[in-house]
């Protein structure tokens, strides 16, 4: 509670006590009026003052002004009718203030809760100075400095471990509770908590460019991108208040005039009272507060689970996702190619691999890399000459005086060598030595352990169709798709074909169904931005992915996609509940008020009650851990 709130709470208690006291005092007439004015002014003086300023600034639809008119109106009616019932005006003001107080308290509290949840900001960095540790502002640490991170401390800046080994808790970044082991030479990302050993880290980035700063920046700005629901509500609020005020005016004037003209009893007082009730219901605050609060809580909860959503609008789109398009490599598969096997080798397998590695030594293609890795030894470039790359086919080269050809079946056909067809799934590199077939190497990209479960969960979450795009061979792609239960698969695509495919899917689907594209964030930026919503996975530390995507999954677990969708659904469900509930109750109160069934008491109760319930409901969006 801040000072303002404490003061308000004191005023609320004082006014409430005075009203109860006055209830038992048998005073009448002018004295009663004056006595009741004491709690009225205690609780409402600032509202009256603000209303006055509003009049000066011509802000007649200001809620303070409306409350002032309603309560003063009620007092005037009480004076006119000599009923001495000033309770109503005081109570309306009192409940209005209680509502305002609760709103301010609840919003402040949830603001703090959510910020705490996202609190990965390191406060300091340790720098060793003459054998003594000195705490400095992370902003002041230059690239290449050595920092020391002790157990229990957060890694403040991205870097590489120079000395020491430890387990790192990445849960604040990824939502993953299993600690990650790190040793000298490993890269570490800021925001992780060092759990066991002392680490000496050489920084590779400035604090402002470090992962932790980027994430904080992103999440803090996320709620500034407003969703359609928020826009709708702020437009609604703009129309609602004036509309209700004009209705109130009409209610105060038209029925009495009508009755006067038709010779009936005009009952001015009764109609004016009903109009004042309208003014009490005219404040749109319950609506306007609960919607951004729901989104803010949803984004906060998601980021705590390692799902960064870059804006409320994206959370909204995510909840309407019906098609999920995957780029196979790096999302469903690990994106790491490994030599699985060597078949039909005419010479020793290791020797064949050695020839392959040398032939591919100039290439940086993932396949070539995997062969070089499988060979596992330093390559002596002088042993290889005459490297020729034949696009779409493979490579020929001379290694140790032997003519080596490494490539697909097309290459073998071209060289007039008969290749042995491989029945295994994966990328196959056929080898020929001095014009004779020498066997083939099978390379494959492992499917992630959770991919199958992830697809099943997406289906369960109401996704209509899952589609896989890949540049891989058809047989490989179809086998992976079958294993995982993916509905549609398009293979042998060039990067530009992927954009075209996504555009095709976008053109075919219904307008209200959204298409999500899931990529690893490396060289699929055009597709990420073309889809309704781009999801980048395994993005920890990759600036490009964070830049291009709308939703960033910090770790590379595909299960998080379904989780992100479930989080967004929950958040949007809460948003709609609040919209319908708040507007519904207000409309009911307006109707009851017009008919004279609802008194001003009920109106203010409804108003404050709706707000309290809507705020409490909004905070539910924060709890997404078990979703």
């Amino acid at each position, binding site marked *: 509670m801040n000072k303002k709130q404490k003061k308000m709470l004191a005023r609320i208690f004082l006014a409430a006590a005075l009203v109860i006291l006055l209830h038992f005092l048998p005073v009448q007439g002018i004295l009663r009026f004056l006595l009741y004015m004491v709690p009225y002014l205690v609780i409402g003086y600032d509202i009256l003052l*603000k209303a006055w*300023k*509003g009049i000066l*600034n011509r*802000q007649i639809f*200001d*809620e303070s002004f409306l409350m002032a008119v309603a309560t003063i109106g009620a007092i005037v009616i009480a004076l006119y009718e000599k009923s001495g019932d000033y309770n109503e005006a005081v109570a309306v003001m009192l409940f209005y203030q209680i509502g*305002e107080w609760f*709103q*301010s308290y609840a*919003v402040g509290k949830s*603001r703090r809760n*959510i910020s705490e949840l996202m609190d990965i900001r390191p406060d300091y960095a340790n720098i060793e100075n003459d054998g003594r540790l000195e705490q400095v502002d992370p902003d002041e640490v230059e690239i290449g400095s050595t920092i020391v991170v002790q157990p229990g401390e957060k890694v403040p800046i991205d870097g590489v471990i120079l000395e020491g080994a430890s387990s790192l808790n990445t849960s604040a970044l990824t939502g993953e509770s299993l600690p990650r082991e790190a040793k000298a030479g490993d890269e570490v990302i800021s925001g992780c908590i060092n759990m066991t050993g002392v680490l000496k880290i050489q920084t590779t980035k400035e604090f402002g460019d470090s992962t932790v700063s980027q994430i904080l920046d992103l999440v*803090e*700005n996320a*709620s*500034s991108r*407003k969703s359609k629901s928020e826009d709708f509500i*702020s437009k609604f*609020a*703009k129309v609602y208040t004036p509309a209700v005020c004009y209705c109130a005016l009409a209610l105060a004037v038209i029925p009495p005039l009508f009755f006067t003209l038709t010779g009936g009893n005009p009952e001015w007082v009764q109609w004016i009272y009903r109009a004042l009730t309208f003014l009490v219901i005219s*404040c*749109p*605050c319950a609506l*306007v*507060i609960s919607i*951004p*609060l729901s*989104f*803010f809580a949803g984004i906060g909860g998601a980021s705590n689970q390692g799902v960064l959503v870059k804006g409320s609008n994206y959370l909204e789109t995510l909840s309407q996702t019906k098609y999920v398009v995957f780029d196979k490599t790096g999302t469903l598969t690990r994106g790491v190619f490994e030599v699985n096997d060597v078949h039909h080798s005419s010479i020793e397998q290791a020797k064949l691999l050695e020839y392959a590695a040398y032939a591919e030594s100039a290439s940086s293609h993932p396949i070539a890399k995997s062969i070089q890795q499988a060979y596992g030894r330093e390559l002596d470039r002088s042993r290889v000459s005459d490297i020729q790359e034949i696009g779409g086919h493979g490579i020929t080269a001379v290694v140790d005086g032997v003519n080596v050809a490494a490539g697909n079946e097309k290459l073998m056909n071209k060289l007039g060598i008969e290749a042995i067809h491989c029945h295994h799934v994966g990328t196959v590199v056929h080898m020929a030595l001095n014009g004779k077939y020498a066997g083939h190497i099978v390379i494959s990209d492992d499917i992630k352990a959770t991919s199958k479960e992830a697809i099943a969960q997406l289906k369960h979450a109401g996704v209509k169709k899952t589609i896989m795009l890949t540049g891989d061979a058809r047989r490989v792609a179809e086998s992976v798709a079958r294993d995982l239960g993916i509905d549609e698969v398009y293979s042998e695509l060039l990067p530009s074909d992927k954009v075209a495919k996504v555009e095709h899917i976008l053109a075919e689907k219904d307008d209200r169904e959204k298409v999500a594209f899931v990529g690893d964030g490396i060289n699929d930026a055009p597709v990420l931005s073309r889809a309704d919503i781009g999801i980048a996975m395994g993005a920890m530390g990759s600036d490009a992915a964070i830049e291009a995507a709308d939703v960033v999954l910090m770790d590379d677990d595909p299960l998080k996609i379904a989780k992100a969708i479930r989080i967004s659904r929950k958040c949007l469900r809460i948003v709609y509940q609040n919209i319908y509930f708040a507007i519904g109750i207000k409309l009911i109160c307006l109707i009851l008020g017009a008919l004279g069934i609802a008194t001003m008491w009920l109106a203010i109760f409804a108003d404050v009650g709706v707000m309290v319930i809507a705020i409490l409901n909004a905070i539910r969006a924060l709890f997404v851990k078990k979703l």
Partner: protein
Amino acid sequence: MKKTYKIEVDCANCANQMEDATKKVNGVKNAIVNFMTLKMIVEFEEGQDPKTVMPEVVKACKKVEPDCEVYI
């Protein structure tokens, strides 16, 4: 040019009104008031100096919501 300012305001609807008022100030291209993080992001038109525009923004905001603060 975009700049972010800290603000202080109590109700969400007032924040929306501040946003509208700020958008109407001369020299302001666009404005977003984020009630949840209590921040105001003002995008200025080219060639406009925030130092001269911001006092106008504060004035406009005070007019719709006397209880607000914009820290410039």
